[in-house]
């Protein structure tokens, strides 16, 4: 019988066709996948990597790094260590004149003042054996353990110190961990403030966005289209323009104060302080993020059949009960999506709060930008960013556990 082979043949051809289809589908998606990998996954991985790995010191001064690792951070520094340090610095300078200063900058972060001592050492041409005494002759600091301890801390390429620092903890030369000085510690407080601000902004967005979405979903299509345009209009305006507009509105000589004075509500001497404080941050951020709340809410409400509420009313429920027990539960996927979107976006905000928030407008992202742009301590910036990312992922996980991701509706 010839049926047997032809069935097998058919199966094979079918499988081949499926494979081809899968391959084609994969090739279609490949550019996007590659793009996501290159522009998203790879930078994030390199970010995490930078937070734990910094070989500025160990790459330039490998022997010194080894000796520092073996040193107990208490006993006097050995002559070997002094010699290798001086000689390796000189070697490094021959290859690239900028390397010693780069190393010194890294050391300086753990022991302030080390930079100029190391530079002084580099310019001392006559420095030779005995190296330790020679160094001490240049500056008495070299005879003390502090500067060597600072080097011991920065010597290992793999280090938890950036993550510790991101949590206001510091590593000691002997490996133990201490709290950052009271006047230098800021990260935990800023994480907490960022969470609070993001939470408050989400709450206000919900408070303002829910009625607007309700209105949008329940008026005629023509009116709702017009209103939707009004909601979206600020969306198409530059963030900076919107933020600056708030400054023009809220400042002491601004529109709001002028109107209030003109109306006689307040006197000229007692203009309201609405700029450069938490109030301004909350107002401006809520305004900027409002569309992210309204859009998912609107799309969910649009899909809710009016017959349910009508049925509830006809069965004797009060207006409130019908709304609260029948209508509102159906909007939860939209509420969840909107809140999650606004919250996550608010966590990463920094331009708006920095411009309008004054002293209170400093959030964790500002510190990340500060270390990226001003101190050039990219490792610390990476560590803080990674923690922020982990926090957002944790919240996302919590959300999926509590509300369920399948219930989220973005529009």
């Amino acid at each position, binding site marked *: 019988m010839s049926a047997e082979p032809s069935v097998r043949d058919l199966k094979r051809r079918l499988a081949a066709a499926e494979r081809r289809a899968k391959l084609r589908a994969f090739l279609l998606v490949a550019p996007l996948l590659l793009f996501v990998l290159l522009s998203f996954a790879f930078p994030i991985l390199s970010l995490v990597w930078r937070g734990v790995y910094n070989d500025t010191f160990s790459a330039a001064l490998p022997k010194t790094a080894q000796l520092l690792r073996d040193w107990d951070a208490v006993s006097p520094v050995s002559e070997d260590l002094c010699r290798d340090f001086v000689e390796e610095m000189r070697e490094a300078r021959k290859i690239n004149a*900028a390397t010693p*200063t780069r190393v010194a900058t890294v050391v300086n972060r753990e022991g*302030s*003042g080390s930079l100029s001592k190391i530079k002084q050492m580099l310019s001392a041409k006559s420095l030779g054996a005995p190296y330790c005494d020679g160094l001490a002759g240049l500056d008495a600091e070299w005879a003390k353990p502090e500067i060597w301890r600072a080097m011991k801390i920065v010597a290992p390429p793999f280090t938890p110190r950036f993550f510790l620092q991101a949590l206001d903890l510091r590593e000691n030369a002997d490996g133990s961990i201490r709290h950052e000085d009271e*006047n*230098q510690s800021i990260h935990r*407080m800023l994480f907490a403030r960022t969470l609070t601000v993001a939470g408050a902004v989400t709450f206000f967005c919900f408070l303002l966005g829910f009625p607007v979405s309700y209105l949008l979903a329940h008026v005629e299509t023509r009116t709702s289209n017009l209103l939707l345009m009004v909601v979206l209009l600020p969306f198409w305006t530059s963030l900076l323009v919107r933020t600056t507009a708030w400054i023009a509105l809220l400042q002491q000589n601004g529109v709001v104060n002028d109107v209030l004075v003109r109306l006689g509500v307040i006197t000229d001497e007692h*203009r309201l302080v609405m700029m450069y404080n938490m109030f301004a941050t909350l107002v401006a951020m809520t305004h900027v993020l409002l569309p992210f709340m309204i859009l998912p809410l609107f799309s969910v409400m649009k899909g809710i059949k009016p017959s349910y509420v009508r049925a509830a009313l006809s069965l004797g429920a009060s207006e409130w009960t019908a709304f609260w027990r029948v209508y509102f539960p159906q909007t939860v996927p939209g509420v969840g999506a909107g809140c999650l979107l606004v919250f996550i976006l608010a966590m990463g905000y920094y331009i708006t709060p920095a411009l309008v928030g*004054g002293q209170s407008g400093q959030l964790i992202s500002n*510190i990340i930008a500060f270390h990226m742009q001003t101190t050039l301590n990219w490792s610390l910036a990476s560590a803080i960013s990674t923690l922020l990312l982990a926090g957002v992922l944790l919240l996302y996980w919590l959300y999926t556990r509590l509300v369920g991701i399948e219930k989220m509706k973005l529009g």
Partner: protein
Amino acid sequence: MKMTTTKALLLGAVGTLALSASAARADSLTVISWGGQYTKSQTEAYQKPWMAKTGNTIVSADYNGGLAEVKAQVESGNVTWDLIDVEPSEATSGCNDGLFEKLDPAKLPKGDNGADAKDDFLPGAVLDCAVGTIAYANIFGYDSTKFPGAKPTKVADFFDLKTFPGKRGMKKEAKVNLEMALMADGVAAADVYKVLATKDGVDRAFKKLDTLKGNLVFWEAGAQPAQLLASGEVVMTTAYNGRLFAPAVAEGKPFVIVWDGQQQVFDMWAIPKGSKKKDLAMDFIAFSTSTKPLADQAKYISYGPLRKSSAPLVGKFEDGKTDMAPNMPTNPANMGNYIVQDVKFWADHYDELNERFVAWTGK
């Protein structure tokens, strides 16, 4: 007679410049500076005459200081900035880190009075990688309409909320503010950096700053202090002296500068390492730091030229009636109590103190 020699020298300088420039074909140079009134003064005094002479064009862009962008460009090997206006501390650290080209001081022309460039420039104005243009001062200014009675005159008045109530503007950076706090707390100008080098000194500075807590608005760009004063958001603010002078004179704003405790800093030209137009940039540096352009710049902003030969040529503001000399940081009457910013100190302590300052501002 003197006039003609000056002219002849100038013509000679012009001739050599024109020759060296015409050898290269017309090109464009990307020049990075601090924006606002300051960039305008450079455009009028340096850029326009240079472009007219050489036929090259200049593209101006602004930045707010710091070396992050230069570092990124140099490390990626894609250097698009040809010339950048920096402060001595950045000029020094950038030079150390290999971010700037080494410059040849022999290329700087003599002063119009015939003095050698190295004698003509003020001390510290010519570095390995940078050539100074002007000295500016960090001062504080106030809105005189807000204080009808007693006026602030001393650096300590900035911290005196009882006599002079109202918000203060301050740059979001440890530099300048810590020195100011110490001077206001009674430390003599000569001892400021000695005190600041100790832990107690730093604590003392921050303690003084604490007294302004809750009354501060921070600024970052040089143009902001004048805006903050004009909008009534603050009654007093630290600023670069030229940024308050211009609106006060040109627009008649009631801004008054307090010179007590002024902190002088130079502005300098540096060429990012690997600029494809290094020679052209050097040509522009030589031109712009010659006697006449430096003196001309004072027409547009009250910053003091760093060439001695420029000082006698400083005349009136562009309005034609305000004498510039009394408004210069380098005017003897304004230097009763002043310091020059210590580059070495800040190279050592910038990171540590700035981190503490940022922590302080966040709380």
